């Protein structure tokens, strides 16, 4: 069990390192170092940067040193919680991102919950009633869900909401709460706005999860232990829910490792269309303004967030699956 946790932890760490390298590459990609672009954008905005300030920054990030040193300095800054400055805002990246990252987490979580809550019962139904009309209908709807990219679904929802309900379905808060400090009322307002983004974000993942649950369960239904459970005289319903469903749940839970990156990815682009105050619009703005430092940091944080989510799901899996919990490998 400990070995399992350790293995997962090491993999998570390696993944984080990989992400940090990729983010750093992205920061480095545009011509010139980012201090140059920092100065350029500062002066474009009418501000000035003193020689001394520039020198201090170059020193801090080791820009005159080899690329590996630069990377290490950057990482050590980040580990100390110093994410640097956001050029366009001229504020620390940490302040710019803060709330938006929390909201990204909340929206992604809501989408995961929606995905599971829908995919689980439908997947079970489709497997147990294989080749029934219901199975075909769900499979077909699932395929359509899979075929509509998130942003397109968001556009359609937006259009339908506007056209037929005369309502703007975008946003996460009503106008009166948008800038307000956190309060119970603001939280309730958030909950009221969550379903639409969660559904839009979760739909194509749901389609995939239905197919995964269906095929997992079909595999399990063929196993002898289902037959022996039947032979004990349980009702068919009880047999299926207690045994194969329970077993098929485990690989289902472990797919969160792929579901989460997918949803976080989707949240970026869906947020743009539905104007959700997540890191998505911020990332796009930063990229278009070529503020690679902010963009790189956002990409890194998104990646780390995903890795943490996956690691938590690994622990969850260990908790529900005695084979992992008890086997010493």
């Amino acid at each position: 069990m400990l070995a399992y946790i350790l293995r997962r932890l090491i993999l998570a760490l390696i993944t984080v390192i990989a992400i940090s390298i990729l983010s750093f590459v992205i920061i480095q990609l545009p011509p010139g170092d980012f201090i140059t672009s920092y100065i350029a954008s500062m002066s474009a905005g009418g501000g000035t940067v003193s020689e001394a300030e520039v020198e201090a920054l170059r020193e801090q990030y080791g820009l005159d040193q080899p690329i590996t040193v630069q990377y290490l300095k950057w990482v050590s800054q980040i580990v100390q919680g110093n994410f640097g400055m956001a050029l366009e805002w001229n504020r620390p990246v940490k302040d710019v991102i803060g709330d938006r990252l929390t909201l990204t987490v909340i929206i992604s979580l809501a989408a995961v919950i929606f995905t599971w809550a829908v995919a689980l019962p439908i997947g079970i139904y489709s497997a147990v009633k294989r080749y029934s009309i219901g199975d075909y209908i769900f499979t077909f709807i699932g395929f359509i869900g899979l075929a509509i990219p998130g942003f397109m679904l968001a556009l359609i929802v937006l259009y339908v909401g506007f056209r037929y309900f005369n309502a703007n379905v975008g946003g996460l808060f009503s106008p009166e709460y948008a800038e307000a400090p956190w309060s119970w009322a603001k939280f309730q307002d958030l909950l009221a706005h969550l379903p639409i983004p969660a559904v839009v974000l979760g739909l194509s993942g749901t389609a995939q999860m239905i197919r995964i649950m269906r095929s997992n369960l079909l595999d399990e239904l063929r196993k002898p232990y289902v037959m022996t459970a039947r032979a004990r005289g349980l009702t068919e319903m009880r047999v299926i829910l207690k045994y194969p469903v329970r077993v098929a749940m485990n690989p289902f839970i472990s797919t969160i490792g792929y579901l989460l990156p997918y949803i976080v990815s989707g949240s970026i682009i869906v947020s743009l269309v539905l104007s959700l105050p997540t890191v998505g619009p911020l990332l796009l703005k930063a990229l278009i303004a070529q503020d690679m430092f902010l963009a790189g940091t956002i990409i890194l944080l998104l990646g780390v967030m995903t890795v943490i989510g996956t690691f938590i799901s690994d622990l969850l899996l260990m908790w529900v699956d005695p084979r992992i919990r008890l086997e010493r490998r």
Partner: protein
Amino acid sequence: MNDQRTPLLSVRDLKTYFFQDEGTVKAVDGASFDVARGQTLGIVGESGCGKSVTARSILRIVEAPGRIVGGQILWYDAKGQPTDLTQLDPDGHQMRSLRGREIGLIFQEPMTSFSPVHTVGNQIIEAIRLHMGVSKAEARRRAIEALRQVGIPQPERRIDDYAFQLSGGLRQRAMIAVALSCDPRLLIADEPTTALDVTTQAQILDLLRELQQQRGMAIMLITHNLGVVAEMCDDVVVMYLGRVVEVGSVDAIFHQAKHPYTRALLRSIPAITTPPRVKLHTITGSIPHPYNRPSGCPFHPRCPERLRGLCEVAEPALRAVGNGQSVSCFLYENRA
């Protein structure tokens, strides 16, 4: 069969087919035999001849696309009243109260016969509570007792183990404990020892025999192993391609086998007297494709004694040839 022995289960002309896109698999195609009270019936035959499907048909747990399409399965209750199981709703109360309560089932693979995410105890207690209507604590006590009876050491601790924590032999013992936890009158054992090593096999068979003597239950023993049959069974049913080709007492089958298929099976066992490095006998040809059964006697394409012009066209019926033995073969039609 012997008239004095009262039947417990009587299978009459059972037909179970699997309806697939590619064609219909006639897994069991007119099988008939009886299981007498307290006796052991062996069922032998090549792989794929329908032994397991027969067992599942009796319990009414044949999975889609399989269906019982004909015949009767008569179950005699304690008063000797028959019920035709094929007429019951497979998920209905009556059928379910037979399953696990009156008829227990053991499978070939003890590993996969237990749920990998539930403890062994959970699965025994479930059966006991379902059929005996006792409290949780009482069910647990009985489950521990059941595990003790099948010779599992430290049952109080083992009851909370998962199947993958037990060795193969213990697992199969636990499986027997589940099957026998409600004191059934018939135990169906589908190749109970195939996955075990030879010593463990012998122990499990001894255990079965012992439990049978204590409880007076009947056993339907499905096996590939003629040695096991000789040791355990009172009567033997030989199946080929979903049909019963020969039935008789162990003595009759082993010493006066009538059907060419049975004789071929017996010849394929190496005797202790067989000299080493001599090629064992094999049956010519292979089992026909399940979608395309031969016409007439299903064994005729492989039969050395087939009667040309007869065996390819007509199906022989199962006929008594005396001494409690029956055979389905034209070689014995006129003698019957």
